[in-house]
């Protein structure tokens, strides 16, 4: 199989370029894209990529695979390389450190802005803060996010304003804490989001929904935030 990979080493290359590799795919096997990267690494040890758990849990190997963002470790060739060719690029919109490894600082900065931790100003109970099963159920579809950045880097609004628009991943987490019955900072959280950029740059493009490897729906969470802002202010 022909695999074309984005290469860039800022210490030696003046500009990024695409490098082609011919990779032997073992017959009768449906490899994951990450396995293909490992085969390329055997041919060419200068290729840099990021990985850790290799099973869709750590969120390290987000890539642009044949034009669509996804995790290399859970994307089978049968799904992404139907035409028999594989094109691997870094996630778009963030600076490249080397080859297909990107600098996620801006992504984490947006995550940090939404204060991704429980805030509660009531005295701590002796054992723990309890939730009813219904209250806990509200966090389903939110807490599963692994911060792989596939969604935010597929979002045009995040490309244009990565410093000001929180992006789908950050907003999904913002709603995760807004929806938490144990969090008492709801009003402050909403006040921080009511500017023209943080939430409202979402134009409902829904690329985030179509790429999320965990099947989450950031657009729906953003809609919930907007409704909360609406009922707080109208």
């Amino acid at each position, binding site marked *: 199989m022909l695999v074309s990979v984005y290469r860039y080493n800022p210490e030696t290359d003046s500009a990024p370029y695409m490098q082609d590799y011919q990779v032997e795919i073992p017959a009768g096997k449906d490899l994951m894209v990450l396995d293909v990267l490992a085969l390329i690494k055997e041919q060419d040890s200068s290729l840099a990529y990021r990985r850790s758990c290799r099973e869709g849990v750590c969120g390290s190997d987000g890539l642009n695979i044949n034009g669509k963002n996804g995790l290399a470790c859970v994307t089978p060739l049968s799904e992404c390389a139907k035409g028999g060719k594989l094109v691997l690029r870094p996630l778009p919109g963030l600076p490249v450190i080397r080859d297909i490894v990107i600098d996620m600082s801006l992504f984490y900065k947006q995550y940090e*802005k939404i204060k991704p931790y429980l805030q509660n100003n009531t005295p701590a109970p002796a054992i723990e803060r309890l939730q009813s099963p219904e209250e806990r159920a509200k966090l389903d579809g939110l807490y599963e996010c692994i911060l792989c950045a596939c969604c935010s880097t597929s979002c045009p*609004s995040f490309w*244009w*304003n990565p*410093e*000001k628009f929180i992006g789908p991943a950050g907003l999904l987490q913002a709603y995760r804490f807004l929806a938490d019955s144990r969090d008492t900072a709801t009003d402050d959280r909403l006040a*921080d*989001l*009511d*500017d*023209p*950029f*943080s*939430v*409202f*740059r979402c134009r409902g493009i829904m690329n985030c929904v179509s790429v999320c490897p965990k099947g989450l729906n950031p657009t729906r969470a953003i809609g919930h935030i*907007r409704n909360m*802002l*609406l009922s707080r*202010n*109208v």
Partner: protein
Amino acid sequence: MGVSITNFSRSGLSDWLIQRFTAVVMAVYTVFIVGYILSTPGLDYGQWKEFFECTGVRIFTLLTLISVVAHAWIGMWIISTDYIKPAVLRFAFQATCFLTMFVFLVWGIDIIWGL
């Protein structure tokens, strides 16, 4: 966080609401005008003039004109902050939009109200 002095209201929520509200006004007005034209066969200048002499029609038309301006301003401001990164160019674009809309608004009021 990214608050700018040049957007309509400094609040993302109000901008968003204004855009939705003005869109509804424009949609209803379009149905109203198209409906009037379709239901008045052989429409001539006299009838058209009489139609616009009715205060209700004038108020609705003015409301729509203001809606167009507000809707367009918010939209153009968003487009400029998405795509035009150099501040000088962005400001020049916004100023041009503002002046154009202002001229059309005053001109439109002049036409509708015949002051």
